[in-house]
């Protein structure tokens, strides 16, 4: 925890720079096969479930000695016999008993499964077939506002252009396997091209709604294809408008360059397990202006300015901050944030 030098600084909304512990939740659906048990320890890349790609409902008769319960696994005749797992014999997609109906059972099943691999090491805390698997991740995390796609894992690499953005032409196959840090903003075309180049993820400060929608539509089309795609995710750190990445977060991501990290979507986070990493600590009086005319600027906290009138005839609690050019301005407290 960073010490606050003045009591007034407590009036500035705080944002944790690094969080731990992290419970990452992986969503699964009825019919998906869980291959881990609660309490199990998992390593990076370990399969935790098999997801049915196109699940369907079937009516199945149940032989007399079997008394299934809703959620139990239904096993098709195995095509390939393999070692048993907590979910049943390997090699057969099988399915899941949903509910009994007219002396038979409704079963969720399918033909093709995609393995769901954990991008983080940790302990499986909770398994709810048909709902979710929760893993207490080893390491620490930086929270974003949303993660699209994923989960994924790769090595952190800085990829910002001169204006803090990333253009499609700047991408090449040498970036395959990386999670790219793009400072300010990125468009859908760049995101889809990055995926095609084998990039595993993108971290960006802002993603506009239009780009988000276009990317999600492209992602859905890709996922509907028959071949399995490598995992890919976009982690948005701040919001939907253009502003540079917060300095303390950028410093942390820079410190992580070349190291492996994971992006998970629930909660939307970048998780890294680098115990010896010294997280760059921002000065306690550093504040960031996240909205308004000075959006994206970082400054030094001077003190409370009391209630002030701002544009639009609005009276708000404000603080005085010193910008890098030495000028002191009053900014609504709500437009400020500090990192703790």
């Amino acid at each position, binding site marked *: 925890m960073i010490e606050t030098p003045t009591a007034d600084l407590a009036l500035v*909304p705080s944002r944790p720079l690094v969080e731990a512990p992290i419970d990452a939740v992986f969503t699964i659906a*009825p019919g998906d096969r869980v291959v881990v048990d609660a309490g199990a320890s998992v390593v990076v890349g370990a399969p935790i479930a098999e997801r049915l790609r196109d699940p369907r409902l079937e009516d199945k008769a149940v032989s007399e000695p079997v008394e299934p319960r809703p959620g139990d696994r239904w096993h098709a005749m195995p095509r390939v016999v393999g070692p048993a797992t907590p979910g049943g014999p390997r090699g057969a997609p099988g399915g899941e008993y949903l509910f009994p109906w007219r002396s038979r059972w409704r079963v969720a099943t399918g033909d093709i499964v995609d393995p769901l691999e954990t991008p983080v090491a940790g302990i499986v805390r909770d398994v709810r077939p048909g*709902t979710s698997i929760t893993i207490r991740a080893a390491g620490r995390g930086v929270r974003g506002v949303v993660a699209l796609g994923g989960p994924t894992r790769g090595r952190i690499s800085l990829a910002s252009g001169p204006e803090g953005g990333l253009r499609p032409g700047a991408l090449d196959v040498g970036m395959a396997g990386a999670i790219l840090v793009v400072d300010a903003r990125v468009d859908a075309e760049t995101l889809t091209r990055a995926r095609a180049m084998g990039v595993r993820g993108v971290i960006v400060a802002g993603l506009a709604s239009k780009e988000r929608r276009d990317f999600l539509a492209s992602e859905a089309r890709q996922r509907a294809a028959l071949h399995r795609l490598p995992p890919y995710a976009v982690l948005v750190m701040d*919001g939907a408008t253009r502003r540079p990445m917060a300095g303390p977060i950028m410093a942390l991501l820079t410190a992580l360059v070349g190291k492996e990290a994971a992006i998970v979507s629930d909660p939307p986070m970048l998780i890294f397990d680098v115990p010896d990493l010294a997280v760059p600590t921002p000065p306690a009086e550093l504040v960031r202006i996240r*909205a308004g005319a000075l959006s994206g600027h970082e400054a030094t906290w001077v003190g409370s300015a009391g209630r002030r009138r701002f544009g639009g005839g609005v009276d708000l609690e404000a603080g005085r901050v010193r910008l890098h050019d030495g000028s002191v301005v009053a900014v*609504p*407290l709500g437009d400020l*944030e500090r990192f703790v």
Partner: protein
Amino acid sequence: MTGDPRAFLAIDRGAATAGAALIGRVGGAWRLLGSVALPAAVDDDALIDLLIRRVEAADAVLARHLGISAQQSGAIPAVTVRTVPPRRLAVVAPSERALAPLLEAASRSGWRTTGASVETTDPLAMTRLLLDGGVHGILAGAGDPPAPDERGPLAEFTALVAAAARRRPDRLVILAGAMAEATDAFGDLNAREGETLLGPAARSGNDGAPLRALLTELAVPADDARRALGPAARTLATVLDRRIELVEIGFDGALRAIASPGDPSTGPTLDVAIVPSARLAPADPDDATVDRVLAWLTVASDRHRLRDRLREMRIAPWSDLTGDGAALRLSAARAALGRLADATPEMSAAAAPDLIVAAGGVWSIAPAPVVALALADVLRRPGASAYALDHARLLGPLGSIPDEDERAAVISDLADDLLAPLGSVVTPAGLRMGRSAGSLVVHGPGGDARGRAPIDLVPGGIEVVDLPPGASATAEFRFRDGVRLGGRGRHFAIDVVGGLAGLVVDLRDVPIKLPERADRRRELLEAWQIAVASGVRE
């Protein structure tokens, strides 16, 4: 409250902003000493410390007399309410016809809802919905007795819901209507971790009121601000002896309550709707939401940019409140108010109340007359009402005082402090466009015409008469043709009270019609805003 405190704090910890007010015993009565509002991300200690320091700085003698000091702020008793995000209820039924009233009841009872019926959703998708990790409870209902279109799929539907309930024994399950007779399929209900409740059918009682009451009880926790606003409205109605409508727009939901003092035989009455879909900042604004905000926006924007800003509002609701941000906030508030009105049609259809009270942090950023205009823009009913603002966000905390008499005593003392008078709005309906509708003369308390010439009433516009807070008058309207203003007639004399916006005579259409073209619409909205803001008092 316990003991005999000389001061107490009223804290309303909302999802976007947190408000704290200090109330002290002065001259034998409770009075509001001061209030502050800060972003919700700021903790209570900082909020209270700021408030106490300001009160000490303003009147050190009074602070000492009441035993208030920043060093001992922890010793001041506090009534606290907080707003928690609404939880999600999966609402399922055998048919679309059965689903509609269930969804309607749940969505105005404090729940975020996702609905599905056997008619339009396959069993796999419905199971996926019932098992979804984001779902807190299941409402499964059928008519009582089931309608012909429900009887066929009812058995399979029951088996599906029972199976999902067994798989998630921690989940709240409400079986409504004919589903309440199918408990055998659910096994041993006592063995479940989560509650299993039997409820009335969606349309039973007073158009579903019993089911709505049950769902509301389950939706909001005991210390929730919206739960407290209902009792606060009822007590206020009793104290003021007025029929009151309370509208609250919040970050995660909205509330509309109509309370009346009733008569000695019935006692006070209260009708409350908590509508999460009428929240200020939807998480993922769709085109309809964006268009609705765009319709009220006085600054030029396109759908994409507006959607970006609405997302930003969701992420950091306490930021970007100045300049265009203030206009955006008020447009989003109007859009939310519109959704609230859509969800509560019977309240909109009721006669205009004596007093309309606006609550919620969103109103605190705007000048008072603009708040009155925003309310009048959306809550359009022929009639006359006084408007007021819960400026210090006291109604939630005071409504949480459990003892009715104690609550009434405190609200009675604070009645003049807790509501900022916005003024009176008179809205005649049925005016003929294109010519003068008539005239208005405002008489002071003694019957004088306050030195004014008759005001010509031009349909389609807004007339503002300066009537300061605390003043009262009689507005005498003479219309050329019959209009609706409470009843139908041509000559009306209406008692009005003053406020920060004065007397607003709203001669626009009921319901309001806005131009299709964006530039003309913005011009018109700005013109109305200027009309009411010209009489701003601060």
